[in-house]
């Protein structure tokens, strides 16, 4: 039997918060957009296909959070079943490295949801402007992507020697 090192606890906390913060952001964002989409569908059921894409856009933050978590699990050996013994420092470094994707995803998910919701209004009136609505929504996502990138680069920079 191995003993779970204290550092590992923080690494797990980091992975978990990357996943759940991004997940919360996406849940709220997809929720807001979904409400607007449902409103449009009551009037115009044929637009369902377009609206579901707009609703799905703020869902990526949750995925980025998951990717961040996966990265941590992979580098700490939690996936393979034999976790590395991490020092306290290493654990905390991993935890902090997870913040960009987590917190960035949380906030950008919510705001992207709002833009997507407005986009549903655009599609309701001018279905041909679907592309514009998608791009407006994607502008917000940029910062979730940069968060993921920062997290991965930070994690990549942390050296773990078993």
């Amino acid at each position, binding site marked *: 039997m191995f003993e779970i090192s204290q550092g590992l606890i923080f690494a797990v906390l980091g992975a978990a918060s990357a996943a759940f913060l991004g997940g919360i952001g996406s849940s709220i964002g997809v929720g807001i957009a979904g409400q607007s989409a449902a409103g449009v569908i009551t009037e115009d*059921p*044929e*637009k*369902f*296909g*377009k609206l*579901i*894409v707009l609703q*799905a*856009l703020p*869902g*990526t933050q949750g*995925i*980025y959070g*998951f*990717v961040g978590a*996966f*990265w941590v699990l992979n580098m700490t050996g939690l*996936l393979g079943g034999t976790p590395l013994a991490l020092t306290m420092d290493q654990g905390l470094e991993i935890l902090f490295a997870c913040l960009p994707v987590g917190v960035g995803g949380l906030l950008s998910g919510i705001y992207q949801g709002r833009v997507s919701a407005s986009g549903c209004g655009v599609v309701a009136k001018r*279905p041909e402007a679907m*592309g*514009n609505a*998608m*791009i407006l*929504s*994607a*502008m917000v*996502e*940029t910062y979730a*992507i*940069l968060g*993921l*990138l920062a997290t*991965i*680069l930070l994690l*990549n920079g942390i050296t773990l020697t078993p």
Partner: protein
Amino acid sequence: MPIPKMQKVHIVAHADHKDAIIEKLHDAGLVEVETFTEILEGLHTEDVDAGDLERKLADLSYGIDFLYTFSVKPNLLESFFLPRYKIEKKHYEAVVNEFDFSIIEEMKNLDQTLSELKNEETRLKSIIEQLQPWETLTIAVRDFETERTVTEVGIISTEAVSEILKLEYVHVEIPFSTERKTWMSVTYLKDYRDELEEIFRKLDFQKVSLPGGSEGTPAETIEEAGHQIQMLQKEREKVRERCMVLAERRMHLMIVYDHYLDIKKRHDVRKDFANTEKSFILQGWIRKEDLPVLRKELSFADEVDISSYEPSDIDDVPVGIENRRAFKPFEVITRIYGLPLYKEIDPTLLLAPFFIVFFGLCLSDFLYGAALILLSVFALKKIKVGPDAVLLFKVLIMGGVVTMVLGILTGGWAGDLTLYLPEQLSFLENVRQSLTVINLLENPILMLEIALILGLVQVWAGILIRGYMNVRDGYYLDAIFDQGLWLLLLPAGTLALINKMFGVDVPAAGLMLNLSLAALVGLVLTQGRYQKASNPVVALGKKAMVGVLSIYNIFGYLGDVLSYSRILALGLATAALASAFNMVAVQASGIKILGPIIMVMFLILLHLLNIVISSLSAFVHSGRLQFVEYFTKFLEGGGRTFKPFGSHPKYIQIKEED
């Protein structure tokens, strides 16, 4: 790449030829007609009343919407791409000739009947609900008042019930009670009325009248209402069945709608003409290359004159972009942004290679690329989609090819699926490993560098295109000062910077540094050249100021280039998600007996999900890089789309007979 040249046309003809000319123009679909604007003595516009046509169109569109509920729904993909139904011309004509508007009257009646039946059902249901507590009452409503007795029904608080039960001269029934309230009937001789009214008031007995207007007992009324509801439902089912039958003709309505839409267009276009007593004039736009065709089409009579002009500077010239077959699909992406101005440049060809490579890098998976191609081909073959959607799928097919190639180079085969293959196939893992040039998950920094270099190249290309446009339009100095200097500074400066800051060996490092300094000085000296002021000292100050501030654009370009890091991030997200899904699915194979089947199902579903999500991201973000980082370097945009007068059906597409 260049935007097709446009000509303004005036067509003057004898009034007798008006209908024929409208017909020809409509069929040819070459001329965008605009309102004749020149005010000349003696010209008048025709009053066009399209009330009847508008009513017909409104009726048809009502019918199409009404029947939607009863018809076979288009699947998700079709509803995303606005289905277009291909109709043969013969069929089209037959439908239009046979169509009888009474079918729409019938629909309106059916619609009304449906809502009446629904209302009646709701009313009966609410009666049943209200009568529910009284169901076990044995006294019929017709017996509530007899020659000598009266029956009151009402609700009383349960505490007070005993007060009533104490009375000797009443008959009480309690069909329903709760802890707080009791539903009761009290039957008494009329002689005691005053006495009882007093007691009722004291005990707060709230009289109610039973709903339903029936004379029987509540139980009977409920049963009868139940019967009626069944009848109503049967009737409603009948009406719905009739609607379903009608719904099979929804396509006919669409055909006729498009037919009348065309008629209305030919009708409305007359409003734009200017008329004299015997002649008329119309004004419009046409592609220069189409002019001979137009002349030929309208050569059927002598009294038709066509004159064409080059557009002037104040004209709001419509823009019609035209690309070779291979690049035509990318017009979809140009159109998302909006068309360029007439004097600008068609960016379709210029964005295509960048877009497709970025798209491929964001997915970078051999198997995903193959799946994307298969799915797109399937969609093209099996789904009735409009012309725009066809182009979109073609972009996805090309994107799929690039994704496959880049997938091989980055070692993405549904993530790392080859790791988990059974022994007979495990050689594929060796194939994958040996073909991999960069592994994203192991060496993200290298990929980041590639992404940023691609960004620098695209930003540089954008500036170059602007420079080309300036040269084309004769602004040589602007091309040299505004674009040339930056074109020099960006690569030279980047090389000099990574040499100084990161100590990377670059060729001719000293020369690069000198070149970038020279470019910087050049920018400071030239960027303020258009600043003016009456006082020469102030003018010089302004010039210097603007010149120095222009250096600030470096940060703009820096931000642009860093934005391309998303290519790495999205590629990583696709790969990491794929690996995670593989891991999850392989866990499932441990389950007894069904394990392998569950694993395969999991693999298919999860990877399909990843393909959909990642392709959406890849498309949207590759598009954004074009619009925000690239187009802004050389396009103003906001051009007016060239919309030639002709047939623009909403629902159908007429198939040409072979």
